[in-house]
């Protein structure tokens, strides 16, 4: 298998922040909006570099979504940033009407997504955001895997015309993908080839999937690892091709079972290539307070949990 080195520990939200500054330099129409969390969502760099293009909306996310939609009419490319729960679930109807249905060029950056947010607890740990955003027609849903990819995804979102949801975590996580690699929206990323089972992963769990593949290799099991950084539009072709090859699938994500990557893959397999499949995800419950490490371990989102699911799916092959 292909081995990946942990280069550093970095926050994905910070990757977005760097990408946004770069996008702002490349395109003077890029503007940013935040709801009193510009530091938390790492938009402070952009605000400092381009103060006239940063709009402080205060603690009013619904209004921020509408303002972003209005700005997009005038040729602006608005990136709005907030905690993922408050820029998706809290404002779902606003996004539905003036971003998705009206098909406006608005980029929604949801930081602090997933259970690895940790200590803030369940009110802030959205694990439903992928389900909400992918349900909307016209919406593109991006879930980058590390800091470097979060930066690249931000640049890709700026160039893409149309609504985008960009999911980002808060905590420092392994950075392992090459710097400066182009992000291709809608294109699954083959990280390691294998023949016995496919691990489809997104976000922070891509690293865990790679660790699982290393452990499986020692057992003589060859796992293919594919990073599904774009949940929508889904790379159906790549998923079907890999499932046909390995005949066993495990999906890995920091999201609820319902409506996440696993459901997108399950739907694809059911329609095109029925294949035994297991989920590594959170089963229909809210999170709680704890360190990011404690959350990932206690909610069974670790490499060891992926290995266990691989053993289970191989028995069904």
């Amino acid at each position, binding site marked *: 298998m292909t081995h990946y080195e942990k280069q550093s520990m970095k926050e994905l939200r910070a990757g977005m922040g760097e990408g946004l500054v770069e996008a702002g330099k490349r395109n003077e129409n890029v*503007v940013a909006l935040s709801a009193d969390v510009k530091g938390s969502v790492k938009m402070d760099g952009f605000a400092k570099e381009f103060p*006239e*293009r940063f*709009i402080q*909306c*205060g603690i*009013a996310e*619904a*209004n*921020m*979504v*509408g*303002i*972003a*939609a*209005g*700005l*997009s*009419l*005038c*040729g*602006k490319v*608005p990136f709005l940033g907030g905690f993922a729960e408050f820029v998706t679930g809290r404002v779902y*109807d*606003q996004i*539905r*009407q*003036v971003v998705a*249905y*009206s*098909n*406006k060029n608005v980029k929604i950056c949801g930081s602090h997504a997933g259970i690895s947010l940790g200590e803030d607890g369940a009110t802030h740990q959205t694990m439903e955001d992928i389900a909400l955003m992918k349900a909307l027609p016209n919406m593109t849903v991006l879930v980058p895997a590390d800091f470097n990819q979060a930066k690249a995804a931000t640049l890709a979102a700026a160039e893409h015309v149309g609504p985008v949801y960009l999911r980002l975590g808060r905590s420092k996580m392994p950075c392992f993908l090459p710097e400066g690699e182009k992000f291709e929206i809608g294109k699954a990323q083959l990280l390691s080839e294998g023949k016995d089972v496919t691990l489809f992963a997104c976000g922070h769990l891509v690293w865990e999937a790679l660790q699982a593949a290393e452990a499986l290799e020692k057992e003589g099991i060859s796992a293919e690892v594919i990073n599904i950084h774009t949940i929508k539009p889904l790379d159906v072709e790549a998923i079907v091709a890999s499932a046909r090859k390995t005949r066993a699938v495990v999906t890995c994500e920091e999201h609820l079972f319902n409506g996440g990557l696993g459901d997108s893959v399950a739907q694809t397999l059911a329609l095109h290539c029925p294949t035994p499949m297991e989920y590594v995800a959170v089963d229909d419950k809210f999170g709680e307070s704890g360190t990011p490490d404690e959350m990932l371990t206690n909610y069974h989102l670790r490499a060891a949990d992926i290995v266990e699911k691989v053993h289970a799916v191989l028995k069904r092959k």
Partner: protein
Amino acid sequence: MKTTQELQQIATQVRRDILRMTTNAKSGHPGGSMGTTDWFVAMNFNIMDFEPKNFTMSGEGEDMLFVSQGHITPVIYSTMARRGYFPVDELKTFRKFGTRLQGHPSTAHNLPGIRMASGSLGQGLSVGIGAALGKKMTGDKHLVYTMHGDGELEEGQIWEAAMFAGAKKVDNLIATVDYNNQQIDATVDEVMSLGDLKAKFEAFMWKVVVIDNGNDMQQVLDGMAKAKALTGQGSPVCVLLRTKMGYGVDFMQDTNKYHGAVLSADDLPKALAQLPETLGDF
């Protein structure tokens, strides 16, 4: 520019259109449409600076209007057609399968003149603020107008937006409230009294113009001209437009009965008899 008398004639025809469109569709919202007809006619023909045949989504170089209470599509579409955005004959397709004239405004069906979907209430002021900020950023001196129902002011997002526009001095924005004191369940006073609405907007750092009779064309023209004169002075401008829901037909006025209910085929001729045809029916 039209004379006041010409505008009044257009308004009468628009009210006929509203009633015929909604009865034809067997659904829709005639009440608020008829109450705001005079305002829409004044805006489309005299107040706003735009040219239908040059419509662009960006609205660059022209005034823009966002109607936040999207349910009043009958008056929106009739005035748009009468102003030349699309053929008047198309009004007969209102709410029919395959139409560009969706039940609520949509950008998904390529209808020129519509820049944003509305219908889910409370969102148009935020959108208008975004467009107004966009115009400031691009150096476009034209104005952004929004229109709201008074019942719609119960939505919290309106007050988020009102706070933003006042605090951030969005002074190229004029928001008009159709202040008819009617909503679906009862009067606004009964459902959720607005109290001193003028004082509320002033407390949010807006300038406020009150039009006592929004069904008097001259008062609408004068009031909107006054509102325009108040722009560019560091504050957003609010117009409180006192209207009567269902104005123009005696048995439809002063009630919320026709908010979302249409005239039967039997009642339609009785209503149309009070609104003589001026420009020709669709």
